[in-house]
């Protein structure tokens, strides 16, 4: 690599980084380098050649983790250069430094537009590469017509980059691309295979968004796949004698999207799928990747028995292989097959259990996933046990959230009986209450309130069980918020059902009051506890001094919710009969009848009117009255919101970088005002 145009400093930098033995040493070198760069860049009139080099060094610094934002503006300026080399480096550094929401993007748009229309295709390519990286929502109307025109450029490198840019547009604004579907389809038939391959990505996204509109392309995809597997592409696309494996994988994933639940489309694909799997079976990793993709496809499209058998046999080969990567694929593939037909899982149970005990964490996670999909009412207890065990032992928060979700959904779907469900949910709350969504708690509470719906005595027995369990749980010193909420609610409603010895209603009330003192993450939990106490006192006419003291002390709490509850309690306490009516027993499921017209207040209103109070005037009457009485106010001085005084003219950027950036900000201010 010729380094004649690079300075000695650059060589020194690269060498010293290569030789540095530790991260700290490397950090020191880079910090020194950044200081030198700042000094150089502040010098006036830097030649393009030198600027190129400084930019590369800035990129180096950023790559190794240090901030080099002082160099960004120079990168943007470099793209304006006529010299192709400098322009390319300018674009490259912009790609690396900037992102789509960066303030300097505005300065780049104009250059990009000019370069996209230039006659020199290298310039077009560099501009396109930047478009792919940096385009944002505002730029699309300006840039997209140019890009679409470039789809038919004579150079295939340009066409390829253009279609990748179209892909990026699709991700940001799908509608912009959907109008141009015909043009994109033409790219699919492009004679150059790499352009065709690039178009597959856009078509994949379109197929995911609108499968119906792409169904007519199924024969084309099938025929392309056929051509690939028959080695009709140029030799360069072969990888270890496997023709264009990534294209095959992409085509297979598109086919799987289009064939879902569509018998006619799927029938087109059966033959080619079989052929593909047969040819891919070559003993190389890449071949296995293609087989895996085929299996995924087979499980998604309209099921065909023969293909499923083939897929299952391949998966069993994977799962029992020595190569751990293949086992991983096998487990994942099995999870998908099982969704179509659970029978296939049975023969591999031993292997799956082995995988679960494997020290490899990734494999364990995938096996848990497989177990989750394989659950049925028979094995749900075992599966949930395993999941709970992992929840207990794992530390990673993403995994825990995932496990909590799985356990709750399994418990809700397959619970053998209510008691087991309550126990499982309690364990989950205890282990990781903060990760459980609130709906789960509501479901649980609703279950306790409504019961299973058939048998009154079974419901009561269940409620007794729930109350007893929660009473015992309350003894524990630390509980998660959501659990305390549930306990408080259940005890408030059904405390009289408690059958454990030594716990009278007074004791329960005392326990609850003591609970209020505990520190909570969610302040509304105390609200729950206070309401529970209210219910107990209301229904049983308790005279519990501890409870009343607590409530009086929380009357002045900062949380308005809590304050309101305490005040309501004080008021209600004064008439026990009213309290019993407002907080009836076991009536959480009944609707509250609201008299919208407030007819019961008629007599009160009439009495007040007789005493001489003014009758009510609604808003329009009030406004009419106000206008006639209005004194015309002085005109409000309207200050102009835009400052039309000219700014101080921009001076040439000759000073220190600090000044430079301020001036640039001025310029962009002006730009923004005028847009």
């Amino acid at each position, binding site marked *: 690599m010729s380094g004649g145009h690079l300075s000695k400093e650059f060589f020194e930098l690269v060498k010293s980084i290569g030789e540095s033995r530790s991260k700290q040493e*490397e950090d020191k070198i880079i910090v020194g380098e950044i200081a030198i760069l700042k000094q150089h860049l502040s010098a006036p009139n830097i030649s393009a050649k030198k600027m190129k080099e400084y930019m590369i060094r800035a990129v180096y610094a950023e790559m190794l*983790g240090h901030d080099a934002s002082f160099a960004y503006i120079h990168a943007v300026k470099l793209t304006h250069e006529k010299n192709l080399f400098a322009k390319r480096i300018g674009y490259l550094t912009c790609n690396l430094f900037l992102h789509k929401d960066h303030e300097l993007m505005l300065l780049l748009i104009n250059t990009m537009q000019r370069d996209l229309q230039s006659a020199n295709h290298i310039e077009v390519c560099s501009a396109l590469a930047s478009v792919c990286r940096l385009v944002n929502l505002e730029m699309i109307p300006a840039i997209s017509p140019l890009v679409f025109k470039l789809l038919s450029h004579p150079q295939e490198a340009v066409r390829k980059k253009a279609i990748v840019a179209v892909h990026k547009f699709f991700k940001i604004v799908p509608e912009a691309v959907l109008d141009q579907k015909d043009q994109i389809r033409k790219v699919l038939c492009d004679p150059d295979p790499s352009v065709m391959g690039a178009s597959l990505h856009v078509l994949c996204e379109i197929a995911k968004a609108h499968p119906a509109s792409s169904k007519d392309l199924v024969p084309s995809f099938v025929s392309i796949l056929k051509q690939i597997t028959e080695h009709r592409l140029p030799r360069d696309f072969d*990888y270890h004698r496997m023709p264009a494996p990534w294209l095959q994988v992409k085509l297979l994933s598109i086919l799987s999207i289009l064939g879902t639940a569509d018998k006619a489309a799927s029938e087109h694909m059966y033959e080619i799928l079989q052929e593909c799997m047969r040819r891919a079976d070559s003993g190389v990793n890449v071949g296995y990747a293609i087989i895996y993709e085929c299996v995924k496809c087979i499980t998604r499209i309209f099921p065909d028995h023969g293909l499923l058998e083939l897929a299952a046999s391949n998966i069993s080969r994977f799962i029992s292989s020595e190569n*751990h*990567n293949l086992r991983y*694929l096998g487990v994942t593939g099995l999870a998908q097959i099982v969704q179509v037909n659970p029978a296939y899982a049975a023969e591999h149970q031993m292997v799956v259990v082995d995988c679960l005990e494997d020290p490899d964490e990734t494999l364990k996670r995938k096996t848990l996933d497989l177990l989750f999909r394989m659950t049925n009412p028979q094995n749900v207890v075992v599966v949930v046990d395993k999941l709970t065990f992992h929840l207990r032992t794992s530390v990673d928060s993403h995994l825990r959230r995932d496990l909590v979700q799985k356990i709750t959904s399994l418990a809700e779907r397959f619970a053998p009986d209510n008691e087991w469900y309550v126990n499982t949910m309690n364990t989950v709350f205890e282990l990781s209450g903060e990760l459980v969504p609130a709906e789960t708690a509501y479901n649980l509470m609703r279950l306790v309130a409504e019961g299973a719906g058939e048998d009154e005595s079974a419901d009561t027995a269940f409620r007794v069980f729930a109350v007893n369990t929660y009473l015992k749980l309350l003894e524990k010193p630390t509980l998660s918020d959501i659990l305390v909420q549930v306990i408080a609610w259940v005890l408030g409603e059904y405390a009289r059902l408690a059958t454990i010895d030594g716990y009278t209603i007074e004791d329960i009330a005392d326990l609850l009051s003591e609970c209020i003192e505990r520190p909570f993450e969610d302040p509304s939990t105390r609200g729950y506890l206070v309401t529970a106490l209210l219910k107990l006192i209301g229904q049983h006419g308790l005279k519990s001094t501890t409870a009343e003291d607590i409530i009086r002390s929380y009357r002045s709490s900062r949380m308005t919710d809590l304050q309101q509850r305490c005040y309501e309690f004080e008021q209600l306490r004064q008439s026990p009969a009213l309290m019993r009516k407002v907080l009836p027993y076991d009536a959480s499921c009944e609707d509250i009848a609201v008299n919208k017209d407030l007819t019961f207040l008629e007599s009160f209103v009439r009495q007040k009117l007789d005493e001489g109070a003014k009758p009510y005037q609604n808003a329009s009457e009030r406004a009419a009255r106000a206008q006639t009485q209005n004194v015309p106010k002085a005109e409000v001085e309207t200050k102009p919101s835009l400052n039309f005084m000219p700014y101080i003219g921009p001076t040439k950027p000759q000073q220190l970088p600090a000044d430079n950036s301020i001036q640039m900000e001025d310029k962009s201010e002006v730009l923004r005002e005028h847009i």
Partner: protein
Amino acid sequence: MIKFILMVNKQGQTRLAQYYEFLSVRERVTLEGELIRKCLSRSESQCSFVEYRDYRVVYRRYASLYFIVGIDNDEDCNELAILEFIHTLVETLDKYFENVCELDI
């Protein structure tokens, strides 16, 4: 969709970093540090795929250099295909540099 490609050596020095989604410099540094620690702690007999935050990460070790590719999670991503992609990358570098080694990078 590939989110990032990294080449990190055993001492934790990043030799190459290419990000396809914007992450601030500080986030990048933490990401690289945590990932290399995770990959280093795995043995040969464990599979090359890891789940990290909300990405799936595929890595492969060549001599003292770890090639790490991060892809979108829960998509139709074929991890083995990505692994082979890493290998293609290495083969291409090899062809270009003739017997590539870490120093070339």
